[in-house]
């Protein structure tokens, strides 16, 4: 016999009326946001990896029997890195294949630049940039296959094998050169080592994904619970009419999954439509090529199915009770209490995290796992706190609105927790990332340019030449052979202390290039690059994670508030009919959110702060005071946004109680 589940589900969905449609639309909207955010996160993760891989050809695997020499160098202009790849075909060897982005291997004297560098060359005076290259005009531009980002500044220069720029002296020699300079004999460009500017991108995104995936799950879960009261009543009635638990769960699952799939698909379409806009969001080395952010159809399908499945699971888990005890749910007789075991589990998680992190350097994957564990622990703990908070507030409440809010909290602590959980967990992110700006303390290379030399004697000899070159370029500078050894990273060389702004510094770097004998002169940005590439990523990640967290948290709060109004419209209507002022009902709704928000979000933000301070302490760095201000602003804005989201359902509350006679129907 054919199963009645699908036809009956379809019939009930069709006949659910305007209220059912409202719930379905809200759930679908949440699914759309969830799928859009997940696909964007996935795109950033996969895109960051794909993008970093596109830089690997610049440091190819050495081949003793290779056909060409490749030397990687990095120079800076306006504190932005320019990757310089010097290539020299070795005589008597077979022709080396063209590097990615070029049609042929560059001949001696040919040089190619990325479009962004070409633009910069046109914009800046030659003395500041163009004179660093062999000719005033490039031979052509590098194609996208050779670039990780359209914003990347890259030059590929064809040289003679005897050119100092590809000589052994061009290889990494100093403390700061790691990843910025290298040299190898190669036979092709199939390298696997990602550039120093992109190597941490994917790990940082993974950390962000770890932080954001929970709020997304919360959102999807909230979507699955939309219309719960109505569905409970309807399905309890079906259960009483003889439907089996399995049929009931199947009907709920099918309905929620269908709505979720429709929403998730909409989110996926929005992701597709927004790809060009997303590609314009700079991260790490700059904006993206649109193709880098396309995750591929299998991932799109997986996310749509995943979000729909999550919503279905959430809806079904809500109804497990109805399946087992229809009368209980029909009359809502069981208060949803929380047990002490939640506190115990949370404490156990905290102890485990403390033991796992004590004095150890953590890999990003481990860090994400611990972060998820903390989230999981807090997920258990949150409802317990809400329950206790509700009981305490209920004991001391004097006003009806506070009493209503407190009783609601202790009546359904899990529901109340879901409303605020997004912002509570975002508070942790905010606390950690805004104040935990790591950075090198005490190093200041401002206004300095270093030129490494082969030895100390060369350095002494180069001082006079450096003064002459700087004078000729019109740069005021004092030149010596040492700057306490910091900017030269242990190498011999010349250091010029330049007076003036960035243009003077760039002019000095350009004018001192002939001194380098294969090594490019560099300024402070070069020395700080490995650290700044990490700290900048974390700062970007922190800001992006915060923004998205608050966005999702606000969406979750607004959605849950609207769902609660729709689910409780009859009670609200009857209360208003009996003369209960709308503002009392509204205040109760707001307090129901504000009370746990103040306690829990305050708690997690403080925990995030503590974690940031500990990490900074371990790294010997100072905490970011500007970050503390940013944190205060973020938390305030987040709380205000959440209250606004709840306030947005006030017209809905007014509308559903506007005609009290309908409440008696």
């Amino acid at each position, binding site marked *: 016999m054919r199963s009645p589940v699908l036809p009956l589900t379809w019939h009930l969905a069709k006949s659910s009326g305007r209220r059912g449609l409202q719930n379905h639309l809200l759930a679908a909207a949440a699914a759309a946001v969830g799928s859009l955010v997940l696909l964007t996160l996935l795109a950033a993760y996969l895109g960051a990896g794909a993008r970093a891989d596109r830089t690997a050809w610049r440091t190819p695997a050495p081949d003793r029997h290779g056909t060409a020499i490749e030397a990687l160098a990095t120079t800076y202009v306006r504190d932005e890195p320019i990757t310089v790849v010097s290539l020299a075909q070795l005589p008597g060897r077979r022709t080396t294949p063209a590097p990615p982005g070029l049609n042929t291997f560059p001949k001696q004297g040919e040089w190619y630049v990325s479009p962004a560098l070409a633009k910069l060359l046109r914009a800046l005076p030659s003395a500041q940039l163009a004179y660093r290259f062999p000719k005033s005009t490039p031979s052509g531009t590098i194609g996208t296959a050779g670039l990780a980002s359209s914003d990347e500044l890259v030059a590929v220069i064809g040289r003679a094998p005897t050119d100092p720029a590809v000589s052994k002296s061009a290889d990494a020699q100093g403390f700061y050169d790691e990843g910025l300079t290298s040299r190898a004999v190669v036979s092709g460009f199939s390298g696997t080592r990602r550039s120093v500017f992109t190597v941490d991108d994917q790990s940082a995104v993974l950390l962000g994904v770890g932080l954001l995936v929970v709020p997304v799950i919360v959102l999807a879960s909230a979507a699955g619970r939309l219309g719960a009261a109505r569905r409970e009543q309807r399905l309890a009635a079906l259960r009483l009419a003889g439907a089996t638990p399995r049929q009931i769960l199947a009907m709920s699952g099918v309905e929620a999954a269908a709505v979720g799939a429709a929403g998730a698909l909409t989110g996926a379409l929005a992701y597709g439509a927004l790809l060009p806009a997303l590609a314009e969001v700079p991260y790490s080395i700059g904006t993206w090529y649109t193709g880098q952010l396309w995750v591929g159809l299998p991932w799109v399908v997986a996310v749509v199915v995943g979000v729909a499945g999550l919503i279905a699971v959430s809806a079904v888990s809500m109804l497990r009770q109805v399946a087992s005890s229809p009368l209980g749910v029909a*009359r*809502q*007789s*069981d*208060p949803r209490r929380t047990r002490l075991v939640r506190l115990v589990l949370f404490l156990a998680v905290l102890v485990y995290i403390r033991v796992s992190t004590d004095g150890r350097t953590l890999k990003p994957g481990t860090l994400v796992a611990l972060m998820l564990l903390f989230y999981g622990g807090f997920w258990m703990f949150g409802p317990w706190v809400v329950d206790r908070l509700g009981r305490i507030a209920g004991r001391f*409440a*004097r*006003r*009806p609105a506070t*009493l*209503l809010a407190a*009783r*609601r909290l*202790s*009546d*359904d602590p899990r529901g109340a927790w879901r409303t605020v959980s997004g912002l509570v967990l975002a508070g942790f992110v905010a606390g950690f990332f805004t104040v935990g700006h790591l950075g090198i303390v005490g190093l200041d290379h401002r206004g300095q340019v270093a030129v490494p030399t082969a030895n100390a004697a060369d350095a002494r000899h180069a001082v006079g030449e450096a003064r002459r070159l700087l004078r000729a370029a019109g740069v005021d500078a004092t030149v010596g052979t040492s700057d306490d050894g910091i900017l030269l990273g242990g190498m011999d060389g010349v250091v010029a202390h330049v007076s003036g702004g960035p243009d003077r510094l760039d002019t000095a770097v350009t004018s001192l290039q002939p001194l380098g004998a294969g090594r490019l002169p560099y300024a402070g940005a070069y020395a700080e690059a490995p650290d700044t590439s990490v700290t900048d990523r974390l700062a970007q990640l922190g800001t992006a994670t915060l923004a998205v967290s608050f966005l999702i948290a606000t969406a979750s709060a607004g959605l849950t508030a609207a769902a609660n109004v729709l689910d409780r419209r*009859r*009670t609200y209507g*009857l*209360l*208003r*009919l*009996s*003369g*209960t*002022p709308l503002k*009392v009902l509204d205040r109760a709704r707001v307090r129901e959110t504000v009370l746990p928000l103040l306690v829990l979000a305050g708690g997690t933000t403080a925990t995030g702060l503590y974690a940031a301070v500990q990490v900074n302490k371990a790294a010997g760095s100072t905490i970011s005071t500007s970050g503390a201000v940013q944190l205060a602003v973020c938390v305030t804005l987040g709380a205000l946004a959440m209250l606004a989201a709840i306030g947005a359902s006030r017209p809905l509350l007014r509308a559903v109680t506007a005609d*009290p*006679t309908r409440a*008696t129907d």
Partner: protein
Amino acid sequence: MSTVLAGVGLTKKYGSTTALAGVDVEVGTRDSLAIMGPSGSGKSTLLHTLAGIIRPDGGQVLLRGERIDDLGENRLSALRRKRFGFVFQSGQLLPELPAEENVALPLMLEGLPRAQAVERARRWFAPLGLDGLERRRPGQLSGGQAQRVAIARALAVAPDVVFADEPTGALDQATGTEVVRLLTSVTREQGAALVMVTHDAEVAAHCDRILQVRDGRITNYSQFTAS
């Protein structure tokens, strides 16, 4: 018996449908009035109009001689809160509040301190046969018990009039009879008037008077000497 509430020449239309076509009705202190009629006859519209929930198109509603149908929404809301009590078929109790707090809520809304409000609310439990159920939530009460809590809540503010809309509609016959007996007797004891809409003739028989309504008009009027 002095008149507490009166409707004079009440008319109400929904589009082309006439819900009330010039109804005159009045209830006095300790008076109970049952309004009966088939579905769509206008009985609920009449109750809602008398309670200040619906504004009539024509006619007047007078509470102790003062017109209330032309009051602003806020004043009407306050009037319903302070001088009327309501008992509905079901769903009027807040599921998360214990029974005593459900009863105390209208008193707290009137500004009574919580402790006093709860104390006053508790006084209703024994007379209504709810002793020991003060801390139970609505979901933990039987249908009849929940309706008795609703009656306590309606009477807690010492209203002039209690409006009951199908108060036994969700109850079995025996429980319904018990609830309506309590409702009429306690309302009378409190010196309030009762206006009740019901389908059930046995329930209506507990009231002093019965109005039969059809097509927005009073078609029959019965008065009992005792109930």
